[in-house]
């Protein structure tokens, strides 16, 4: 069968499953007893195996199969979760990711067999078998096929021994599940379910004989069942079903809240199913009694267990809600990002055209009537809304970038032998797709820095009376027209004096300068390229490895980065990114007869200040604005335009960059305008204050000023 058309879906779903596995494995390591997590992991691994088998990626299937074997032992409580075990499972995930990357690039999974990981997984299984478990179980785990024939033989006897008929139904001979022998631990699960008021249902499914892909079909049926409950046993085994080692019927045991009818309905919705029969499973009284006792004993020895069980039940519900939520969000269409770019460009054109209409209508007298104005205003509202809507379609939650970080921090923690914990908030904060694609590396860099250099070693933290487990925070939130991402640690902070010393040694600053410098300016030295290239500086300052690269990247995205630090309490890096790059709200001003646009995002306030209020300190002009001493920048001088005669009062636009303020002197204000950013190209190398240009309604060009570069 040609499965290439499903490749995209396969890649997407595999990514989702791998991410899911990564997240839950992290939880499992912390809470080894958490059953719902184990089940979730098992399910994800199982789906992965099924999908890769269907797509014909045999190496991938083999690896997931071996991982699943280990997971199934954990699930059945036959094996304990250890850190080493999780390590190997993580290695398995990495290998799967590598397969996926290969598949994405070349549509083939590659040649790597990952024997090492598979061997490690099998060794775990072997080691476990040698030390525990009854021989019967070991045999069962290895040879389900043998069991198949055995069950065939014990069909008649089995009915009396193990499963009692609940109702005398006419089609009971079709209910093949009633003849299947249950393992002890499976019986235990059934009794437990009974105690939790859950139903245990057996079902036998018959496929139409013309069914071509029996393995995939069984997989789909099982998925349908799993929406209603948990499959505790399949006969033949899941592996045999996937390998199509069965005729046209198989049986399943399910723990669920639903009735057999609901399950049958769910199964019948899958195509190529001929018939499904289901009934409640009742164990013999002996079985119930012995198992109830066993469970009670367990509960007595570990009361916490009960607690986690109810917790799990709740989590199970939450998970169920999550799946329904996922189904809702799945109502989407995949669109090529290029198409969205075209749409965005068209919207830009529309806004330019709209601006043209607006400026023309104010010039022509005949158009100055109220009805026309109304239409124009309506048009303005619509274009603004279209812009927003198109922008939103390009927005992606930052989650897709940050969800790999918990895993990274875990690995770093082991690698650096430091205990640390990552706390993330605001993963649902959305950013433009182009920004999302670029932001991953800088963030990773900052997190690594925080883990490596920011946090002190555990012993030192103990000595300082801090929690030996260091905390790293990654917070994202929207703030007005920009998105803020903060990377924070509770380590020792940036050592200002050390930076100063090294900076003086390296000739970056003079001793005099160092004395006059504020802490903020000193921290800024870290972002200088010259400062980060030297290994020596890096060792001493503990920071600065590639921070200039981070800064350049952020700035190329139209954003800014700022560092804050408090000795002994930690440091934080604050990244501020624009929501969108193409269309900006701006303030139009006139400087020396020329029109310029200032992005509104940076503007704090607009002040009118008397000429005599400007003071000169150390050759720099400043004003005292409500207690803040703010430096004044005469844009006319910087832009080399002849500002005419100086009026008595100066118009000063106060802009904010991080925590710094500056006042920009302009001649005249025109007003607020939604402008479309256009690059002025590579040919012109203008003043760095000019970040681009925009076309005004009358066809004129106004340059966009990046006042941040001056602050």
């Amino acid at each position, binding site marked *: 069968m040609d499965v290439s058309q499903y490749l995209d879906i396969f890649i997407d779903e595999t990514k989702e499953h791998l991410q899911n596995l990564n997240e839950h494995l992290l939880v499992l390591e912390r809470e080894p007893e958490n059953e719902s997590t184990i089940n979730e992991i098992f399910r994800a691994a199982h789906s992965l195996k099924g999908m890769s088998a269907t797509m014909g990626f045999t190496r991938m299937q083999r690896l997931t199969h071996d991982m699943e074997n280990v997971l199934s032992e954990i699930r059945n409580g036959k094996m304990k979760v250890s850190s080493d075990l999780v390590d190997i499972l993580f290695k398995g995930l990495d290998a799967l990711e590598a397969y996926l990357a290969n598949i994405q690039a070349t549509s083939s999974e590659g040649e790597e067999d990952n024997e090492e990981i598979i061997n490690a997984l099998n060794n775990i299984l072997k080691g476990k078998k040698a030390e525990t478990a009854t021989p019967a179980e070991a045999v069962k785990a290895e040879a389900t096929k043998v069991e198949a024939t055995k069950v065939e033989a014990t069909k008649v006897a089995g009915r009396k021994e193990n499963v009692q008929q609940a109702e005398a139904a006419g089609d009971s001979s079709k209910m093949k599940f009633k003849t299947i022998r249950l393992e002890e631990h499976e019986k235990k699960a059934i009794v437990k379910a009974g105690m939790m008021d859950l139903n245990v249902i057996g079902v036998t499914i018959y496929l139409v004989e013309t069914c071509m892909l029996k393995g995939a079909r069984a997989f789909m049926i099982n998925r349908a069942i799993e929406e209603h409950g948990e499959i505790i046993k399949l006969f033949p085994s899941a592996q045999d079903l996937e390998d199509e080692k069965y005729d046209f019927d198989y049986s399943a045991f399910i723990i669920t809240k639903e009735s057999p009818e609901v399950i049958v309905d769910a199964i019948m919705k899958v195509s190529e199913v001929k018939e499904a029969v289901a009934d409640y499973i009742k164990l013999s009284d002996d079985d119930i009694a012995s198992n109830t006792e066993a469970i009670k004993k367990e509960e007595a020895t570990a009361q916490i267990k009960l607690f986690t069980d109810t917790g799990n039940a709740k989590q199970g519900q939450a998970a169920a809600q999550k799946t329904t939520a996922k189904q809702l969000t799945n109502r989407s269409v995949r669109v090529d990002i290029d198409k969205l770019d075209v749409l965005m460009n068209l919207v830009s054109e529309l806004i330019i055209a709209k601006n043209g209409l607006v400026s023309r209508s104010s010039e022509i007298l005949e158009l100055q009537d109220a009805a026309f104005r109304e239409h124009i205003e309506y048009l303005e509202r619509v274009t603004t809304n279209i812009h927003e809507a198109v922008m939103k379609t390009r927005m992606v939650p930052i989650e897709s970038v940050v969800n790999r970080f918990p895993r990274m921090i875990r690995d770093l923690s082991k690698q650096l032998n430091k205990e640390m914990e990552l706390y993330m908030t605001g993963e649902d904060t959305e950013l433009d797709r182009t920004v999302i694609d670029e932001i991953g590396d800088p963030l990773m860099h900052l997190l690594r820095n925080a883990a490596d250099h920011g946090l002190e070693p555990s012993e030192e933290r103990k000595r300082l009376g801090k929690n030996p487990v260091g905390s790293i925070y990654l917070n994202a939130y929207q703030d007005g027209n920009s998105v803020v991402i903060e990377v924070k640690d509770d380590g020792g902070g940036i050592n200002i004096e050390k930076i100063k010393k090294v900076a003086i040694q390296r000739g970056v600053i003079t001793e005099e300068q160092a004395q006059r410098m504020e802490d903020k300016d000193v921290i800024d030295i870290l972002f200088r390229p010259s400062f980060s290239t030297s290994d020596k500086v890096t060792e001493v300052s503990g920071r600065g490895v590639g921070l200039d690269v981070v800064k350049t990247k952020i700035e190329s995205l139209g954003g800014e980065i700022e560092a804050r630090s408090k000795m002994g309490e930690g440091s934080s890096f604050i990244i501020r990114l624009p929501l969108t790059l193409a269309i900006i709200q701006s303030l139009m001003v006139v400087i020396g007869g020329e029109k310029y646009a200032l992005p509104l995002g940076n503007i704090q306030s607009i002040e009118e200040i008397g000429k005599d209020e400007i003071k000169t300190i150390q050759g720099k002009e400043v004003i005292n604005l409500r207690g803040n001493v703010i430096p004044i920048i005469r844009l006319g001088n910087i832009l080399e335009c002849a500002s005419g005669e100086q009026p008595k009062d100066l118009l000063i636009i106060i802009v904010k960059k991080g925590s710094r303020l500056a006042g920009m002197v302009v001649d005249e204000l025109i007003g607020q305008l939604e402008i479309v950013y256009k690059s*002025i190209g590579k040919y012109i190398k203008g003043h760095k204050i000019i970040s681009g240009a925009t076309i005004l309604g009358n066809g004129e060009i106004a340059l966009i000023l990046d006042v941040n570069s001056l602050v």
Partner: protein
Amino acid sequence: MAASNLKQYIIVYLNSKKYGINIKYIDSIIFMQKITRVPGAQDYFMGVINLRGEVVPVMSLKKRLGLPDEEYGSKARIIIIRPEPQAACVGLVVDQVKEVITLEADSIEKMSYDESDEKAQFNAGIGKVEDDLIDLLNISAITRT
């Protein structure tokens, strides 16, 4: 005669001297229009213009070639150049656009110049048209800013 031996040039005037620009670089020729100055730009750039919704930088060709940069009159035009098929456009302001001429390959003479002479690299050869000699411009060098 094989067509590949023929090259078409647009003849422009700069300070009443003739220059040729290979037609393959030319996107369009437009009237002089308002040019928005870009502070801090290279001195030969006059600024940017709005060309059908795109922002296009415009340079004074006279200044770029190191010629006396007198005022551009009413006959001045902006020649929109695309140095490479996918590259962004750039405008060259000239005093006047005269005509299109066709030159055979053997009527173009390469000039040997001192490599270090920056202005000399703007020359791509001398075209002979009847008794006239035309300075053919090296567009890639001119637009390499």
